[in-house]
């Protein structure tokens, strides 16, 4: 821990908030899936990593702009999500009453498979997505706004906004929310729950892919990276509470703020510990999350 100047503090706050947007998009799908389908998807960050690797290889092999690569990442992960629901999740749900507990182990298995597939295909080397604007910054006064952070914040804000709009203002979104609130009631109202489940998985993993792309703009990725992302996702979901898009967004920003400030005060490796302490403290104070209704 070291004493920091006011300038460093403000810099920490600004880049923390920008980072927080990415945290929010990384966690929003996890929260949505847990709410609607009662599946705790421990492979969520691993799917985000798949998105990050697709971004990396598209850039490396054919010079795709990371933002443009979303056109590839989103459909692939959406389809993966639908396939996952239609095969393993459906099969498991048929056999067990307690899908939440079963899904923990199930999705952990999927995370291990994904991690080691990535390890097998891409090797363990850390990869960095380096674009033409990596390392460049906009300056407001003497506060630096790194381009990569601005870009990922923008993408994250649009994605979270789009999911929010989808849930609030479209028929399918409203249907998903009704399943979330009362599954039996939704079935009785003629909502096709199985369709909503598949759709939720698709959207959730697609948003994970976007989150992965945003993270890859700022940090080096390797196949084991998803373990550090998982802590971020948990922290955001526990802070925001399952069941609130707005809560998730705000929780992402708060968490980014905490990380931003603590990263100018201590080495980066301690961040996981900070996150863990936050999670423990939160659970002690309010196990259902700060924004739970």
């Amino acid at each position, binding site marked *: 821990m070291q004493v920091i100047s006011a300038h460093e503090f403000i810099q920490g706050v600004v880049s923390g908030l920008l980072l927080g947007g990415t945290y929010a998009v990384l966690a929003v799908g996890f929260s949505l899936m*847990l709410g609607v389908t009662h599946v*705790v998807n*421990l492979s969520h960050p691993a799917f985000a990593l798949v998105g990050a690797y697709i971004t990396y290889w598209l850039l490396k092999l054919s010079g795709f702009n990371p933002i443009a690569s979303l056109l590839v990442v989103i459909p692939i992960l959406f389809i993966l999500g639908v396939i996952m629901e239609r095969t*393993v999740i459906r*099969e*498991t749900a048929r*056999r*067990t009453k307690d899908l*939440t*507990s*079963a899904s*923990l*182990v*199930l999705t*952990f*298995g*999927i*995370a*291990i*498979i994904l*991690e*080691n*597939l990535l*390890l*097998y295909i891409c090797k363990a080397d850390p990869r960095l997505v380096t674009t033409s604007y990596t390392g460049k910054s906009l300056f407001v006064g003497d506060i630096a706004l790194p381009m990569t952070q601005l870009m990922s914040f923008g993408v994250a804000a649009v994605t979270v906004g789009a999911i929010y709009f989808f849930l609030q203002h479209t028929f399918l979104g409203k249907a998903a929310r009704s399943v979330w609130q009362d599954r039996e009631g939704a079935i009785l109202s003629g909502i096709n729950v199985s369709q909503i489940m598949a759709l939720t998985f698709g959207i959730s993993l697609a948003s994970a892919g976007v989150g992965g792309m945003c993270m890859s703009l700022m940090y080096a990725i390797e196949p084991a990276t998803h*373990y*550090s992302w*998982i*802590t971020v996702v*948990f922290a955001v979901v*526990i802070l925001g509470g399952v069941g609130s898009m707005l809560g998730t967004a705000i929780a992402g920003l708060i968490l980014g703020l905490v990380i931003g400030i603590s990263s100018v005060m201590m*080495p980066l*490796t*301690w961040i*996981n*510990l900070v*996150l*863990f302490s936050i*999670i*423990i403290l939160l*659970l*002690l104070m309010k*196990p259902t999350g700060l924004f739970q209704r």
Partner: protein
Amino acid sequence: MGNKKHTLFILGPVIGGLALLPALRPDVYYLSALFTLFMYAALACGWNIFGGYTGYMNFGHAAFFGIGAYTSAFLLVRYGLSPFYTAIIGGILAAILAAIISWPCLRLRGPYFVLVTLCLGLAVRVVVINLEFTGSSQGLWLRLLPVSIFVNRVIFYETMLGILLVTILIAMWIERSKFGLGLRSIRQDEDSAETQGVNATQLKIAAFIISAFLAGIVGSIYAYYRTYIHPDFIFDISISVLVVLMSLLGGCNTWVGPVIGAGILVFINEFLTAYTGIGAEISRIIYGLLLVVVIMYLPNGLIGLFKKRA
């Protein structure tokens, strides 16, 4: 495993035979492989005392294992105390960590508990890597026992077999006691159990501490066996995962399940890496697939298959 006598009739000769195995002077490789098997069986059986009976999936077992490993290694390197004695201290420290953690964590249920234990495992590793006296990211070297390699392996083989036996006896005792009954009632329905007068919190904390204590002891001996420890493989998340997988594969309701699960997985692992020569990645992919298949098709583990037929 309803009948105590039957179980002991099978268990006694098996353990006795295994204990006498070194007299046949087998290859060192087999002693090492069996050591690994006993270690995982003891870990899984210890995990099951809390994670299996109560249904609270602890995904951070490697934290307790690692605390034990680091405690005994540190005491050996710094003060020259043999891990065979200090293993108890390793176990106690792991139990203390469990006691501290249990206070906030055991109020949580289902997914939240899993998330927190998972994060715990990751966090402890970060702490150890960043602390000076644990050798940080360079790890710690432990001196070898001053005996031939064969005698060395025999000593560790017998020690780990002993630990496994103790773990099994503790698990058997718990299964037959009122304590175990309470734990399993928590698994079935915690709220109903509490209304029937089961002090769920107290039982959970006790089981969690026992489970962590056993893991700490196993870790202490493992550190001495490896002679070199590093946070990357001592606090490896795959240890936590393997232990859970072994219990689920075998079946969580009795001590037999984790032991059988450990036997199968260690055997598969030895087979895959030593004979077929495929990489660690592929064998972990197979582990992942097993995890998925077990959950999808064998919710009660392998033991469940036999129970159904009987």
